[in-house]
């Protein structure tokens, strides 16, 4: 079920009330497991069985890794876990993509092959829960986590409903310790959780879906050439939409978890105020970038190897990061572009070094705007469903169609401009602090008014239960 649906409001109210009314910690955890599987099964009940089987396999494999007496055995069990998880992901998410590309390759050498189209329904959030589960065996192998004795606790760690389908990617090592002793209900924490949920829903329903999504969809769905202004505004609208959509989901997840007494880490830290691409990836989808850093980039050698090898490692990581988002070459190009940006940045840093003038605010702002522009360019490939659209968009953005069409209403242009301006203002104002600090510093009447205003805007907008963009990944 979606956070922005009536079903979720009722579901959450029932779960939270029951959860804090029950005294037994075991019973509470059982309740959360049941609730999480209902939450997930409400999309497609059979997929709950798939989720459980993946979890149970990793639970067992985790124990095998811990019990293994020598390194080759440990590695063999880990390989088993990685293969099991990735083959599940590969079958459901990349099956048709692989077949189509295999067909294309054969055609290049003159072999005509018509693979059957696999009518596979993608289980919601498979990319997320696969990584939740995989982090467990990887951390046991790395020796940073002891296997849990409780299957129920591990099932809850993987399926905990606030973060189950669209992140943050919560590692078992961050969640399992929270299941040792029951949290106490604290009014401040509970209310802060509710405020974060309001903020998340406001970002999703009001800012992403109402203010930006319509314009972005029309621009990217238009079959003809567009003038530069409309092309740029479409991309800027999508940049805002995807941020508010995904950050909104993460904020809701963090808030819902807090209401239940659990602590999830930040997934976004004002990414559009990033100065450079390394900084961007420390602020955007942090749980994925740290996952890729710890389990892929560092094992590949990280930046402890020669410069060229480190650059190749970066590109490999971003290539796979792109592919994680979707089974399409456009996502791969998006990832590669980011890999390329990172390599350029690392090279520039090596050449320029730490100079005093780089600390100047004007220089930082300029670099930040360049970063934002480059990130927007990459979004073109992320949003476009094929390269024809991406090429047309890029051509439009750089003045390739001076006599192209203008399709945005003035109202839409104003919406994009105003929302983007305030988003950038907020990101730059808050880039060095967190929301909690900002809320503590603000006058109380401002926080109260903002909370009430967001809640009223959500009610006014009503929403049509549009799915979050990241559900498809």
């Amino acid at each position, binding site marked *: 079920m979606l956070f922005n649906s009536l*079903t979720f409001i*009722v579901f959450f109210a029932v779960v939270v009330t029951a959860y804090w009314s029950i005294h037994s910690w075991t019973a509470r955890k059982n309740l959360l497991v049941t609730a999480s599987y209902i939450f997930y099964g409400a999309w497609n009940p059979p997929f709950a069985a798939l989720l459980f089987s993946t979890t149970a396999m990793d639970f067992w494999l985790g124990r095998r890794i811990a019990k293994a007496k020598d390194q080759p055995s440990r590695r063999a069990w880990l390989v088993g876990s990685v293969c099991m998880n990735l083959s599940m992901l590969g079958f459901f998410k990349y099956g048709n993509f692989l077949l189509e590309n295999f067909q294309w390759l054969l055609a290049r050498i003159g072999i005509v092959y018509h693979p059957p189209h696999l009518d596979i329904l993608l289980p919601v959030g498979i990319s997320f829960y696969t990584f939740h589960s995989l982090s467990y065996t990887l951390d046991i192998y790395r020796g940073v986590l002891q296997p849990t004795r409780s299957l129920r606790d591990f099932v809850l760690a993987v399926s905990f409903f606030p973060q189950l389908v669209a992140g943050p990617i919560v590692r078992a090592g961050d969640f399992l310790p929270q299941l040792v002793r*029951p949290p106490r209900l604290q009014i401040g924490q509970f209310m802060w959780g509710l405020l974060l949920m309001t903020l998340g829903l406001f970002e999703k329903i009001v800012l992403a879906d*109402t203010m930006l999504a319509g314009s972005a969809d029309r621009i990217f769905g238009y*079959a003809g050439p567009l003038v530069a202004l409309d092309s740029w505004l479409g991309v800027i609208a999508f940049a805002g939409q995807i941020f508010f959509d995904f950050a909104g989901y993460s904020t809701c997840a963090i808030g819902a978890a807090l209401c239940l007494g659990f602590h999830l880490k930040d997934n976004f830290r004002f990414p559009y105020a990033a100065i450079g691409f390394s900084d961007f990836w420390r602020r955007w989808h942090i749980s994925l970038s740290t996952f890729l850093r710890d389990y892929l980039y560092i094992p590949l050698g990280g930046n402890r190897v020669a410069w060229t090898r480190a650059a190749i490692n970066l590109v490999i990581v971003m290539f796979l990061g792109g592919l994680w988002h979707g089974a399409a070459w456009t996502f791969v190009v998006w990832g590669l572009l980011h890999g390329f940006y990172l390599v350029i940045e690392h090279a520039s840093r090596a050449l320029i070094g730490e100079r005093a003038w780089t600390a100047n605010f004007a220089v930082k702002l300029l670099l930040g705007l360049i970063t934002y522009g480059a990130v927007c360019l990459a979004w073109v490939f992320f949003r476009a469903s094929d390269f024809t659209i991406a090429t047309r968009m890029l051509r439009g953005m750089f003045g390739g169609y001076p006599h192209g069409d*203008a399709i945005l209403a003035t109202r839409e242009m104003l919406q994009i401009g105003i929302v983007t301006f305030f988003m950038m203002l907020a990101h730059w104002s808050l880039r060095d602090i967190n929301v909690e600090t900002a809320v503590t510093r603000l006058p*109380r009447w401002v926080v109260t008014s903002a909370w009430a205003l967001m809640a009223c805007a959500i009610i006014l*907008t009503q929403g049509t239960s549009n799915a979050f963009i990241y559900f498809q990944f």
Partner: protein
Amino acid sequence: MPSSTSNFKRILRLPRLFFRPPTEAESVHGGPPLEFERPIPQIPWRGMTVVVVVIVIAAACAWEFYCRSIGYGPTLNDNEDLWTLTRQRVKPESIVIIGDSRGWFDLDLDELQKGLGKRPVQLAMGGGCGYPVLADLAADKTFHGTIICSFVPWLFFAPPGTPPMERGEKAVRRSHTQTPAQRASQYLAMPLEEHVAFLKQEELTLDDLLKRLPIPNRSDARVPPRLPPYFGTLDRERRARMTEECARPGSELQKRIQQIWLPLFTPHPPPSYIPTDVFMAKMKDAIEKRARDTIAAVEKLRARGGKVVFIRLPVTGGLKALEDKTTPRNQTWDPLLQSTGAPGIYFEDFRELASFNCPEWSHLSAGDSVEFSKRLVPHLRAALGM
């Protein structure tokens, strides 16, 4: 945890209405020491929450009061989930109404039930093309009932990718893929929508309020035409009824809607990026394909013992003149009946059906729809061989 739970209960019983600084207990996490713990802003949460709840309730009540004062009343929203619930009521021998908003507003289910012996299932949709639903019912091997298809050429022959076609396709797709959560949300939404006037999607949402702002567009901007405002109510059977304000002779609302229909039903200029002759050829191909697909769907249904009857429902005033000009009967209605071999009822062919006036040119008032349906029944019975 008994002590904390009872604390919470006590706090709930005696809410603190005034701001107060947080206690020490509130600022310390109660669980085990964690590697990571989110900071919690230290502000007077209870007082703030009470103020927020009061503001939100007051604002919602004020908005509800205002919406009712300007003529809005509670009604269900027509969305894919309501359509799906209705689609699930279709039995193998049902009578099903499909097509556009005229089939939705103009046909009274009570009168049709009296005249035809079965209560029809209402699957027509506002601004929708009937073809996707016709094709879906034709593909449903269990269905061998009767289809009453409202026909507005501009909508029925809408090419793929256009809003009327997408609306029909989305509804059909949802009926095949509706999740338990979506179904539950619809059941929860209906009682709310039946009692709260401002829960009117496509009219009173923030998005729609923004669309109403009188901001001029660039002269060359290709902006989609506006859709008509709220002028009907909908019940759980998806029976639509025109509001009294819209039906009131000479009302402002009526005039506004009339002026919205004209650009909506005027053929849009071809896209700038396709030569006109290529575009026209594509449109012709799309219409011919739709005709072929319709024939195939009707034949498939007929082979199972099903029946299809097309009906052209009343249209008046400037909109009728426009439709007659852009989609003349001899180029749309006549070839459709001829090629499908299905019976048809054209309102203009019968004096008792042609004498109705559509207040906003496109639909009958709620009262007239009852009388119209009563008069339509004998024609339907004859067309269906009953």
